[in-house]
């Protein structure tokens, strides 16, 4: 009898300890989760505040922008800042130039890089790996190294003073920015082309298809995902590019939006509200792309990081 009581007491004690342990573990897990979310929310707020500041800043009145401490929300939102900012500089002309440059860059990059990637992956020829190593090496070519000679060459060709210096290089697979380049596009496409089932290509060849047909009828239709990624990354980087236009464009009527905004800023350093309004309109295409094609964007960025 006494033994049983002891036993049950011991057993219930054990059960209580186990329950307590489980509760502690549960609480610890819950606390850890709360801590993680709190940290994440703080970081996210820090990352989003500048964008919020741009948005509300674009609606502030000329008096509001010089208040200290600044207000986070404009007392009287000035929607007229937008039309005013967009007419103060030849905004639509710059926008048109940016659109032309981006369209040519995307088209040129697609044509030149798809063809090169095809030669580097599907075709077999002597010296392929060596040539591909050259292509790969160009990913790391610093733009400042070639910018002076390119400027001089374009000047001799009579291209300085027009948009041409920005329109031609993509067709030679030489679109270079610090963030994305043709060389990276070639690499991305080549890796994907290599993963295509060899049997499909051989089958098409046995049916008498030449290389152009294989590329058009087999490779391109199967590569929609990577092609979209390349288009998006190329558009994004050419739309926002700064250093190329800065060096090669010197006619104000040829300015892209990046250059136009930079010039607006350097002449009206404190017209913050108008600068924010113009900047936000400039950002609309990139934000739309971010919302619509975030998956492709992230895949491209992640890919370029995992390539080694």
């Amino acid at each position, binding site marked *: 009898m006494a033994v049983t009581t002891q036993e049950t007491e011991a057993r219930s004690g054990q059960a209580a300890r186990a329950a307590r342990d489980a509760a502690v573990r549960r609480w610890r897990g819950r606390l850890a989760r709360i801590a993680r979310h709190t940290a994440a929310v703080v970081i996210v707020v820090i990352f989003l505040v500048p964008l919020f500041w741009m948005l509300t800043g674009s609606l502030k009145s000329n008096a509001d922008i010089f208040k200290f401490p600044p207000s986070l929300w404009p007392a009287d939102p000035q929607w007229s800042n937008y039309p005013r900012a967009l007419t103060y500089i030849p905004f639509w002309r710059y926008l048109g130039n940016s659109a032309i440059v981006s369209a040519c860059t995307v088209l040129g990059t697609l044509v030149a890089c798809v063809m090169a990637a095809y030669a580097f992956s599907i075709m077999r020829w002597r010296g392929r790996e060596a040539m591909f190593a050259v292509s790969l090496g160009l990913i790391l070519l610093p733009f400042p190294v070639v910018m002076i000679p390119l*400027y001089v060459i374009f000047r001799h060709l009579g291209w300085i003073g027009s948009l041409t210096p920005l329109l031609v290089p993509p067709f030679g697979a030489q679109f270079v920015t610090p963030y994305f380049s043709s060389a990276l596009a070639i690499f991305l496409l080549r890796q994907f082309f290599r993963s295509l089932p060899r049997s499909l290509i051989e089958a098409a060849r046995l049916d008498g298809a030449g290389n152009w047909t294989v590329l058009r009828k087999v490779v391109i239709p199967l590569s929609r995902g990577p092609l979209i990624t390349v288009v998006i990354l190329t558009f994004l980087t050419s739309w926002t590019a700064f250093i190329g236009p800065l060096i090669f464009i010197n006619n104000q009527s040829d300015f892209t939006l990046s250059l136009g905004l930079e010039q607006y800023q350097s002449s009206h350093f404190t017209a913050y509200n108008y600068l924010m309004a113009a900047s936000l309109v400039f950002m609309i295409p990139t934000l739309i792309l971010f919302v619509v094609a975030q998956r492709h964007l992230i895949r491209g960025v992640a890919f370029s990081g995992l390539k080694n």
Partner: protein
Amino acid sequence: MTQTSARSRRSAVRGRGVLAALPFLSPWAVGVICLVAIPLGLCVYWSFTNYNLLTPPQWTGMSNYRALFHDPVFWLSVRNTFYITLIGGTAGILMGLGTALLLNKPGRAVTFYRSAIFIPAVVPVVSMVIAWVWILNPDYGLLNGVLHLLHLPTYGWLDDPATAKLSLLMIILWGSVGQIMIVFLAALKEIPQDYYDAAAVDGASAWSQFRHVTLPLLSPVILYNVVIALVFYTQMFEQAFVASPLDLGAPVNSTLFYSLYLYQNAFTYLSMGKAAAMACLLLVFSLLVVGGFFALNRRYGHAGE
């Protein structure tokens, strides 16, 4: 029989080899020759000449390199660049890895957090810098406003030589931590859960799991990010240019980085020879970095594969 004919036909397709590949390769090849090889050759040649763009270049031997060696502003730009490369590169990788580890667990909230941290990556550099110039304005900027409300000391940020470089880094990190995070997240996803389960069975703490499983497996990606940071920061230009377009490197040359000084030599002073010499030195440095990267990768990179 069919096998031999198939093989011979296949080799007929391949037999044309280089000739068949040439049309596909020609845009790229023309681009490399005209827009990379020839410019590189000219750059090396001009680095040994006195060239002002208006009169033909004159051979002066090593004088550009000697002039750079004795130019205190050149060394200042090297020091400035070294400073942001070291601090920016380290901070970027730590913040990118930190946010990736924090947001490694899937979930709806986590997806939103990741997107929010990644958004700045699609903001054009010019818009980004213009907005931050206002945020960092000492007299009516947001940051000093917040510090003032919290009764903390305020700073001159971009206007003060002591804080200008760190202020620029704040802008750059805001725009780039999201990308570094994405790369780390993709790498973390590749690590099999079994490794962690095995470590947990062995009684490994969270820290030792990170130290002995995550870190070694991430080392190739960390190495990659180091190289990207080196390449990016050594040619850092746009952010510093837009932050003070009328007075490059302001205040008092505290943000005069290598590429900025190169640009200034070329397009402000028209010392094309000196700028070309700087470009050649930058190229040599980049080649050394890439060579070092491949050597390191060969030795340690396979540890994680």
